């Protein structure tokens, strides 16, 4: 699989060079807002890769994935903001957020793992909403989450006197906060991609795929299906938790409104659209679907111009498209835009479909 041909290294070097200059080129051509969009896209790459472990590798449908993102974000925000007057280091808080998210993942997955996967879907769906109810209401009698107002003034990532929320100049280059975060997020996303690729071909990854394909056969082959499924859940939640911490530090402000069902659906859409189980496809899906709302933004004024008034709000249109995409993808291209080879074999039925 991994060759050490020099061509491969040259390709990697070129890719790194492109990614290194990308924010500056985008900044100069499209404007700083687009650098920010790329930052968010990288966060979603991490999130989608985390969900891909659960849905793509292990074949368990998680409909409340954003809850782990929320847990990570709040873990960071509470311990690095004036909310409690604690200002922890991110070196400690990011792993902590990941750990807390993983614990939530295990606690949530445990009751359903003996049952059919459908139950997991509904439990996670419920959990995604419940966590928001708690975040919204835990401002009384003791103010923990500050309720619907959310937590503000969250510390940026800072290390050895360098704060990512400050602007630095290095020769001709200006490193605005969005640039700083770009490089951190790029590093994290690259780590997530690398981890996902390595996991896929590892003993655990193969166990996940075996469970996805046929749980009974997998357990007959000596796989402890319960533990391996829990591990998938914990691992997916970990990705979400870390992405959440990064999100909190990047935004400086979080509120329960950032973690709704629709966000869970969006991440699921990224995984499904790109190609469940295929790391490249998932990354593609995440990038595409982060850019989509920006493209849809032009729809509002266009309607105004052509039809005289705004008939459909761009954000509603986005959700309509997501719903349509989920259903249509499953009907016509179940393995995604960029399918994984094994997954394609599984999701495209060999038996001719009855009842047409």
């Amino acid at each position: 699989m991994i060759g050490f041909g020099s061509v491969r290294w040259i390709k990697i070097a070129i890719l790194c060079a492109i990614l290194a200059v990308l924010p500056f080129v985008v900044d100069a051509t499209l404007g700083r807002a687009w650098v920010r969009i790329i930052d968010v896209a990288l966060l979603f790459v991490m999130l989608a890769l985390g969900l891909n472990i659960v849905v793509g590798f292990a074949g368990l449908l998680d409909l409340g994935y954003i809850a782990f993102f929320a847990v990570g974000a709040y873990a960071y925000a509470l311990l690095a903001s004036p909310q409690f007057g604690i200002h922890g280091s991110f070196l400690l808080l990011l792993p902590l957020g990941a750990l807390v998210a993983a614990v939530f993942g295990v606690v949530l997955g445990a009751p359903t793992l003996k049952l059919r996967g459908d139950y997991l879907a509904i439990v996670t769906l419920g959990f995604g909403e419940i966590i928001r109810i708690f975040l919204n209401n835990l401002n009384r009698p003791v103010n923990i989450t500050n309720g619907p107002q959310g937590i503000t003034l969250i510390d940026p990532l800072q290390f050895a006197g360098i704060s990512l929320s400050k602007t630095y100049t290095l020769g001709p280059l200006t490193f605005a906060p969005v640039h700083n975060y770009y490089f951190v997020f790029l590093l994290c996303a690259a780590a997530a991609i690398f981890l996902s690729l390595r996991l896929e071909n590892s003993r655990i990854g193969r166990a996940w795929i075996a469970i996805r394909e046929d749980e009974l056969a997998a357990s007959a082959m000596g796989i402890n299906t319960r533990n391996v499924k829990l591990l998938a859940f914990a691992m997916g939640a970990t990705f979400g938790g870390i992405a959440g911490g990064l999100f909190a530090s990047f935004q400086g402000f979080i509120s329960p409104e950032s973690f709704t069902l629709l966000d869970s659906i969006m991440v699921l859409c990224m995984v499904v659209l790109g190609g469940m189980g295929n790391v490249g496809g998932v990354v593609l899906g995440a990038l595409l679907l982060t850019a989509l709302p920006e493209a849809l933004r032009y729809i509002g004024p266009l309607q105004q111009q052509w039809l005289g008034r705004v008939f459909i709000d761009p954000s509603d249109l986005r959700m309509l498209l997501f719903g349509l995409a989920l259903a249509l993808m499953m009907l016509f291209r179940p393995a995604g835009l960029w399918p994984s080879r094994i997954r394609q074999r599984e999701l495209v039925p060999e038996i001719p479909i009855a009842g047409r």
Partner: protein
Amino acid sequence: MDIFVQQLVNGLLLGSIYALVALGYTMVYGILGLINFAHGDIVMVGALVALSVVYAFAGSALPVAVVLIIATMAATVVCVALGLIIERGAYRPLRRAPRLAPLITAIGVSILLQYSAALVWGKQYIAMPEIVKPARYELAGATITSTQAFIFMLACAIMAALLWFVKASRMGRAMRATEQNPDVAGLMGVDTTRVIAFTFGLGASIGAIAGVMVVLYYGQGHYFMGFMLGLKAFTAAVLGGIGNIPGAMLGGLLLGIIESLASGYIGDFTGGVFGSNYRDVFAFLVLVGVLMLRPSGLMGVRSGDRA
């Protein structure tokens, strides 16, 4: 004590609505083994259609009962059509596909319905015009309105009719046969495709009536109302034993009572730390509890159906 009786009455009422919605989940799950996520949203569409009809007739001289009957019929027609279209378009092609595919399709259809409704009816809460002026009765210390009494009795009548239908009618027998084994039922001459479509239609029509009841009960409708309602109804179905029709009824009533009592007393028990704003949490706790302790539900049969 009065509060207890009142909460019990409220719970029974709410529970009877949950039970009706839960029937839609449990019948489809029993036959196809599919969680039809879109069912809650079908109920929502029914509720909003009924509201629109009531608004259209609000100024007319027609008696209230006639308006409500027209509204219910309109909601039923729309919901049954929706249910059949969804079954035909989204689920039937995936009947032999791996389990994950119809689940993802179902959630997609659910989102699609929600935002189509937002497009048609807008995102604000739609209040029910005050055409119904119910009488109030005192019942063992609890107050109950005539509307509420009517909702409860109608729900019970529908459930009784459904039980009879599934047990005694030819179609009901075909439904039970398909549930036990679709392939063998097909060999015995049951048109399983038709039976499945019929089940969707039946679930949707009961859902439509439940939607009208929700509107009457809460006095308002909203494009997102199907989500929590669906989640709770599914919990009710699991509590009773999914796939089991009497189970869904029992589960619905129990869940309504649990929710009502819990949210009524949580403030007292926790010294005001938690309030009734946590009411939606209880259904979820019940769901997790049932899945951990007795996944087959109260009336379900333990099955070896795992993977």
